[in-house]
């Protein structure tokens, strides 16, 4: 089976004035289906850059990224957009829901973009909203939901289309510890019961405690990669 995401000898250099910042430096990593992985490291170590590359939101300066076996370097802008829609789920630190859409419509959005049938969409969205504990709140707009509830809608949106991997950038950074625990429980449950693959970039020790694999990055390179039983 192909890894969900694979990065191979990837470097990313950002020009900064007359100098360059090397965010990633020849990093290689493979995320297998069903993993619950946390990527940690100090600020500026390259966590978010790595997530952006894995999410086809950015291109590496050198090296290769594959999602579900597909080499991203071979894809054009349109194909990359379709790949993000079909194979990758995103959970952002700031929730980033569409404020004019209800919880249901936000969760449904990717399925709509994929052209899924209405009945199928409804079944899947209602199921994922139930999975994240938002049954009964489908018609609420983001401004009528708490931060934790908004992040749960973001998780529902990310998993509704059964992507190869869900990339979550600091998903617990903007919520209190109880809410963070509840969010992590939900994501663990989704990983355990549905087999959804999660990759977190995080500083949060609670995430690190629950992750079954922890990859520590320092200066754009993997310093430590531990898998727990």
């Amino acid at each position, binding site marked *: 089976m192909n890894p969900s995401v694979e990065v191979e000898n990837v470097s990313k250099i950002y020009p900064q004035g007359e100098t360059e910042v090397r965010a990633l430096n020849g990093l290689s990593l493979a995320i297998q289906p069903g993993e619950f992985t946390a990527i940690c490291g100090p600020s500026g170590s390259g966590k978010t850059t790595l997530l*952006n590359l894995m*999410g086809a*939101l*950015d291109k590496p300066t050198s090296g290769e990224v594959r999602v579900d076996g597909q080499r991203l370097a071979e894809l054009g802008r*349109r194909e990359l*957009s*379709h790949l*993000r*829609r*079909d194979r990758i789920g*995103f959970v*952002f630190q*700031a929730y*980033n829901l*569409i*404020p*004019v*859409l209800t919880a249901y*419509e936000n969760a449904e*959005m*990717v399925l*709509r*973009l994929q052209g899924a049938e209405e009945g199928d969409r409804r079944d899947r969205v209602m199921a994922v909203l139930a999975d994240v504990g938002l049954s009964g709140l489908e018609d609420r707009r983001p401004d009528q939901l708490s931060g934790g509830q908004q992040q749960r809608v973001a998780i529902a*949106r990310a998993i509704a289309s059964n992507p190869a991997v869900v990339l979550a950038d600091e998903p617990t950074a903007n919520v209190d510890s109880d809410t963070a625990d509840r969010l992590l429980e939900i994501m663990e449950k989704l990983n355990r019961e549905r087999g959804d693959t999660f990759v977190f970039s995080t500083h949060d020790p609670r995430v690190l405690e629950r992750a079954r694999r922890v990859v520590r990055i320092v200066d754009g390179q993997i310093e430590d990669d531990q898998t727990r039983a």
Partner: protein
Amino acid sequence: MEVFKMAWRNVWRNRRRSLTTISAMSFALLMMLLLSGLFEGMLLTMERDIVELEVGDIQIFAGDYRVNPSIYTRIQEPDGILGPLDDAGFPASDRLLAFGLAASDESSAGASFRGVDVERDARVSRVYREIEAGHWLDPADPAGVVIGKGLARSLSVEVGGEILVLSQAADGTMAYELYRVRGVLKSVGAAVDRTAVFMNQPTFRALMAVPDGVHQIIVRRPEGVELPAAEIQVSALASPLEVKSWRNLLPTLASYLDSARGMVGFIFFIFYLAIGILLLNSMLMAVFERIREFGVLKAIGVGPLSVMGLILAETAIQTGIALFCGIALSLPGLYYLSTAGVNIAAMASVSMMGASFSPVWKALFTPSIFSAPISVLLVVVVVAVLYPATKAAWIQPIAAMEHR
């Protein structure tokens, strides 16, 4: 993505800004429709006054009569032209013209004599309705003439008074006759006011010893036929006589009317430029304050065309509401202006370059009045929204999501 639903909600997300934009567009459209109706109405009335009061759409002359008017230069077979013109649907009337002197007991003045076929003339000119006192010509009253307002004043004659006309007849004898004034015209143009003496054609022929032929044929074009096309058609029917449209006969007035249209276009341009800038600003703000949102949309796989479609749909909704409001508000205004009009007699002269015009400025209220302002507004809207829409459509997701 349900573009329309999202666009509709986005429009009302910042209600105040959307209402301001819609109000500005509605107001601009309202102003444009009223101005357009008024100016088009004014220009059309001026053109109609020029054409209907004296000149006609087209005139036909024999030889060089127009440059060198002579009683001997005549269209010898007018029926050979009037008949085909009638058949082709062009109302036409022949006239006899001469110059001389008109005198009363009090004074005398230079005069132009116009021998008209009363029945035919009514088809090409509404001068017969422009009677200030008395009545228009009657074939049953051969000794009755109608004179211009200014001439009546110069000669100090009123309806019922007598004038003596003097000229040289076509046979070389002295033409002189006493006529009774049966009507005095309102102001219809400087030349007519000052000098015109209208008489029946048989009276003219007897006075000036002109047994046949006419000096001028005045032609009107049928409804829906444009002037250049009419001129070509009449030229073909009247060949080899000289055929001139009113625009060639009165080039200064024609160019004034063209300039006035240009001026209206310039006013339109200024208004729409302001609206374009307002809309551009409004849509740019709407895009920049949602730039993270567009980044998220792009990140989760929404294509650039869908993002662009969203912005265009938001603009289309606002423009649609503005069109509805602008048009709805303009209807009573245009109706009032087209029926009651604006009387400018107190503000400005109603004659210009020798031509007199109706002092009541009435708006044109036809479907054509709506087409130009609406079309231009739509073009301005599309141009103004293209930049923000393109900006949103092609934004890089990472850059957008990092935008502060």
